[in-house]
């Protein structure tokens, strides 16, 4: 008996042609083939997808929640990156 838990995989599904693969959840599987097969059964029983990505969870690197301010705050005061910052005459209609 190996007593070893199968690794965790993160599952990403493309709902239809033209859309991104989107994270839908995770599951356990012994290897990549089983991960894809299990993902099919667990996450696409109702035509939720046409393509599956699986990534072993240990390969995902995430930013630290405590770095949230340092990373994302700087974008907060850069309103000039948004189209509404620029005041243009009404008669210009859509630009």
């Amino acid at each position, binding site marked *: 008996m*190996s007593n070893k*838990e199968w690794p965790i995989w993160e599952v990403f599904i493309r709902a239809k042609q033209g859309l991104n693969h989107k994270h839908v*959840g995770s*599951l356990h599987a*012994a290897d990549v083939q089983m991960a894809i097969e299990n993902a099919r*059964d*667990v996450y696409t029983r109702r035509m939720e997808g046409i393509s599956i990505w699986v990534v072993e969870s240990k390969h995902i690197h995430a930013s630290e929640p405590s770095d949230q301010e340092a990373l994302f705050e700087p974008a907060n005061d850069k309103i000039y990156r948004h189209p509404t910052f620029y005041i243009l005459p009404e008669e210009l209609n859509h630009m």
Partner: protein
Amino acid sequence: MEINLEEVFQQKIDNEIKIEPRDWMPEKYRKTLLRQISQHAHSEIVGMLPEGNWITRAPNLRRKVALIAKVQDEAGHGLYLYSAAETLGMSRDEMLSELHSGKAKYSSIFNYPTVTWADMGAIGWLVDGAAIMNQVPLCRASYGPYARAMVRVCKEESFHQRQGYEIMLTLCTKGNPAQKAMAQDALNRWWWPSIMMFGPNDEHSPNSAQSMKWKIKRISNDELRQKFIDVTVPQADILGLTIPDKDLKWNEERGHYDFGTIDWEEFNQVVAGNGPCNKQRLKARVDAWNNGEWVRDAATAYAEKRAKREAGKTEAA
């Protein structure tokens, strides 16, 4: 200046900001969620057993494919929920061993036997109906992974209830007197256990207040139970069945149905392990785990062998 983490946390909750796995959270919040989500997962898994009992004896192919699909969905629900629980720091194997040792609980409703085909109707209608009532507010639970899992679950539940009700409807409107009696008998046996699914009365539910404050729970046990009874009574009328509660009557003033006293002694007995099927259910789960061991081991061995072979290939190249 010292930042009070607990206050910041509560502020996020109050502002409806979801908590995600790597965010700071009070230990008690983590533990409460872990217990609730893992119990919920166990309930989905054990919940496959009473209905699984009838798959081979479904009366026709249409009923059989529906029942298989429903039971498979419940397996899926268990898996979504185990994944959500794992983000709180307990491994899948630990959760399963808590179930198998009897340390972890699951919903008592699954400790009742399914003795006739009408039980498949009553379970879908009442048990899944009560589950939906409980689960819809959980889609807005404060813990992100739990809420997301519940959204998936709720999307799938409505077919469960409808197929159950359709079974009851067929027995009651197209069946012979014996079949209609079978439907009534199933309602008689499942009614009280179903309304107990909402848990103890609010005054006897000591942890509810904290769960409400943390927005794990949004609606109280008694309120959910009342809602369930109010929507279910007219459904029983359509079937022409009688709910086994002589005190059940519409209260104009309250705008709700009044109902009889729940036998909590029975509930406590079943929770304590003395229900009609507790031993059988647990044994089925433990056997499934033990008998599947060689499969898990073989898959692990195969994966290791293949990884080695692949590594050899890259070296050679």
